[in-house]
């Protein structure tokens, strides 16, 4: 954005244009028209050619990453947008727009092309009401199954009463809950085909984990089918924390009312979410961010990432070792330190709301020297703290026995499921938006992307611990920069109008690297000061989807460890 040097931008645009023509050639007749999205070229295609087009884009143009599916309703049509990227170059994006008619909103499913479309399309069906033809299991995903209406469609009546059931979940001890019996057939349509066959002729058992269970990190429900002690199939049942974040954002004004909600999406590492919103709106409304503010943002975000990773490591140890152990307490201790620093900076312990459009809200707290000293003290102590973690966790024989080689997520599977963040990087996918789609001040600083290729629970832990180190590196450089910044050039916000009204029908999709993975925001404006459609792409949602391939064939305790290693936050999964 503002910081990228103009030459590069120019070049990017040029490349983009030729790339766009290449793609147009590839799609040929199938591209009915082009749409102008701010972030990427967009092609409009027919609803019955979705798979055809996506297969070509995946296999011939290399778009192996379906980042997000946005569904929305216009006055005259429904629309699904597939935001595609490449894992090896996330800046090379393309959007595929699939309009369908109002009377008959049916569109072909993309599930055979990208596995991750499974959940995205279920969400689109649930909230907007588009029907995906050929989808293996098109049910509601976030709202209860007995819900009436699709809340993000235009004619939804919010005052209408709703009835939600509390059905007995299958009782594992009852004979008829054996998968071969009748009772389990009710859900065996949710089981992947291979698993059903297995389940039918062996002695399987159905087990509920959650929605209130200490190992689920919140309110997640895992429908698990066991064969002996091994997991044959697991299906996460989500939506117990679906707080209508998208509706809230669509009601809020761009200027002040959206970013505070983003703090509540991924609430263990809030700061990076704020950047996701800020980046999208700034792109939409062409707002500049002063350099000094970019440094502040970068630094604050890295502190935010640390908050997330400390908790992830602490709770992972909790999942593997049992109740409130020393490691958990250490993790909380370090979180407290970071929270103290951020409280000095932002005035809040958790819901920071530090980002404003065009900058940040405060400069560093006075006296600056004192604060710098505090941060430096923390950074100086961090290596020994990390050593402690390594001694207690990663070097520990028991933990290694429990995690090495468990919960395998091969690289190709991870790509199919749209995994990002530490989960993808632990499967050997070298992608980090901070480096590959640079924003803020990251490309001026010296740091590394942590990648491991073990693909197991252990690697995911290592990636997080290494990322804490890298964050510390980034923060130290930011602190040095801030300390020497000339006093008269400390602009924390650019000039941003009080009310922002982006032009009618501008669309953009922008993502940042949050602690859990790619956090993306799609916005369509309609000329007013609130978005017409606001779609959140949360890394946790896709990462959770990988749980089934990861834990099939594992023991239950390893399923729990695998879930812990994914580090999901339900606020971000359910939104």
């Amino acid at each position, binding site marked *: 954005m503002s910081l990228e040097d103009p030459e590069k931008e120019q070049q990017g645009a040029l490349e983009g244009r030729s790339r766009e023509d290449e793609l147009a050639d590839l799609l040929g007749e199938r591209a009915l028209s082009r749409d102008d999205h701010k972030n990427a070229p967009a092609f409009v295609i027919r609803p019955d050619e979705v798979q055809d087009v996506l297969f070509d884009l995946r296999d011939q143009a290399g778009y192996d990453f379906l980042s997000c599916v946005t569904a929305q309703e216009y006055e005259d049509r429904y629309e699904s947008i597939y935001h595609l990227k490449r894992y090896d170059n996330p800046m090379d994006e393309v959007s595929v727009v699939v309009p369908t008619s109002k009377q008959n909103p049916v569109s072909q499913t993309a599930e055979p092309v990208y596995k991750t479309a499974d959940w995205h399309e279920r969400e689109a069906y649930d909230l907007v009401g588009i029907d995906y033809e050929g989808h293996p299991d098109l049910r509601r995903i976030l709202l209860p199954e007995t819900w009436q209406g699709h809340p993000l469609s235009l004619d939804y009546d919010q005052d209408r009463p709703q009835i*939600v059931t509390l059905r007995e979940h299958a009782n594992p001890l009852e004979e008829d809950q054996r998968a071969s019996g009748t009772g389990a057939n009710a859900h065996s349509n949710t089981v992947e085909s291979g698993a059903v066959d297995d389940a039918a002729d062996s002695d399987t058992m159905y087990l509920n984990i959650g929605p209130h269970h200490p190992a689920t990190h919140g309110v997640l429900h895992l429908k698990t089918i066991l064969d002996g002690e091994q997991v044959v199939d697991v299906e996460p049942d989500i939506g117990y924390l679906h707080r209508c974040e998208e509706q809230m954002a669509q009601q809020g004004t761009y200027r002040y009312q959206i970013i505070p909600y983003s703090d509540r999406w991924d609430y263990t590492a809030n700061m990076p979410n704020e950047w996701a919103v800020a980046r999208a709106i700034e792109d939409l409304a062409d707002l500049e961010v002063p350099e000094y503010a970019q440094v502040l943002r970068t630094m604050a975000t890295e502190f935010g990432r640390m908050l997330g990773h400390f908790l992830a490591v602490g709770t992972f140890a909790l999942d593997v070792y049992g109740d409130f152990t020393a490691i958990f307490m250490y993790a909380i201790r370090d979180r407290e330190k970071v929270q103290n620093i951020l409280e000095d900076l932002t005035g809040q312990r958790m819901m920071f709301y530090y980002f404003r459009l065009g900058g940040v809200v405060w400069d560093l707290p006075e006296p600056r020297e004192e604060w710098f000293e505090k941060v430096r003290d923390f950074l100086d102590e961090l290596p020994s703290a990390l050593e402690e973690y390594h001694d207690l966790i990663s070097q520990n024989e028991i933990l290694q026995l429990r995690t090495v080689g468990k919960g395998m997520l091969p690289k190709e599977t991870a790509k199919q499921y749209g995994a990002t963040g530490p989960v993808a990087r632990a499967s050997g996918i070298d992608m980090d938006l901070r480096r590959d789609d640079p924003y803020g001040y990251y490309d001026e600083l010296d740091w590394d992307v942590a990648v491991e290729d073990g693909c197991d629970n252990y690697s995911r832990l290592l990636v997080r611990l290494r990322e804490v180190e890298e964050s510390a590196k980034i923060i130290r450089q930011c602190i040095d920069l801030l300390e020497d910044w000339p006093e008269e050039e400390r602009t924390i916000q650019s000039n941003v109008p009080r009310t922002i009204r982006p032009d009618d029908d501008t669309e953009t999709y922008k993502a940042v690297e949050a602690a859990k993975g790619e956090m993306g925001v799609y916005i369509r404006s309609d000329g007013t000061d609130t978005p017409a459609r606001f779609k959140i792409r949360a890394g946790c949602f896709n990462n959770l989807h990988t749980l089934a391939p990861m834990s099939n064939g594992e023991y239950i305790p390893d399923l729990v460890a695998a879930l812990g290693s994914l580090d999901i936050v339900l606020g971000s999964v359910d939104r």
Partner: protein
Amino acid sequence: MSSDKDTFVADTTRVQTETRDSRITGQDNRFNSKLREAFGSSPFILTKFDKFMNWVRGSSMFMLQFGIACCSIEMMHTYAVKHDLDRFGAGVPRASPRQADVIIVPGTIVSKFAPRMKRVYDQMPEPKFVVGMGSCTISGGPFQEGYNVIKGAEEVIPVDIHIPGCPPRPEALVYGIAKLQERIANGESSPVVVKPYELEQFGDLPRDEVVDKLSEEINEDDLVMRYNWADSP
């Protein structure tokens, strides 16, 4: 054996006398607790059994380990180092509702979760107490206008203490717990009354358009919760 015994023979009378003397003369304060001083020389305390039980309840509370949303992160911080809720006799999170007598509701309650929460609450043994943590449990908080959000925990279960904040600081939670202990010691608790949203059998619902529509999907005796959004605050 006998020689062994001999070596251990002590002059018990002397020891006891020493202890007793030191207690009476006040040289050794260990034996004169504040309580004993207050009640004089009598080792008996007279109190109403109820009062005693309430004091016991308040002084040793077993919390339910129950995390919902963002507030549960601050709740974890309150349990852990630095804030250490255990100092106040309330820091043993129990994983099962059957072993807990206080439930902290830390977060937004949505339509899919409310029946579950009600069930968890019902599973706790009497007497039980509820702390609502955060604005979400008061009114739905920032998400009050959401299509899927219950407008406060009071709609579903009785709440004894409301702690405002989004999220409340750990100090606020500690203060709320202390207030709850006070209330318990005084024998107060929120009355259990019929709430706007209760679990009922589907067959008992008054027939309307939605009920008719769902009658195919839901059995007569399935438990359901009916949300009447139009009338909720």
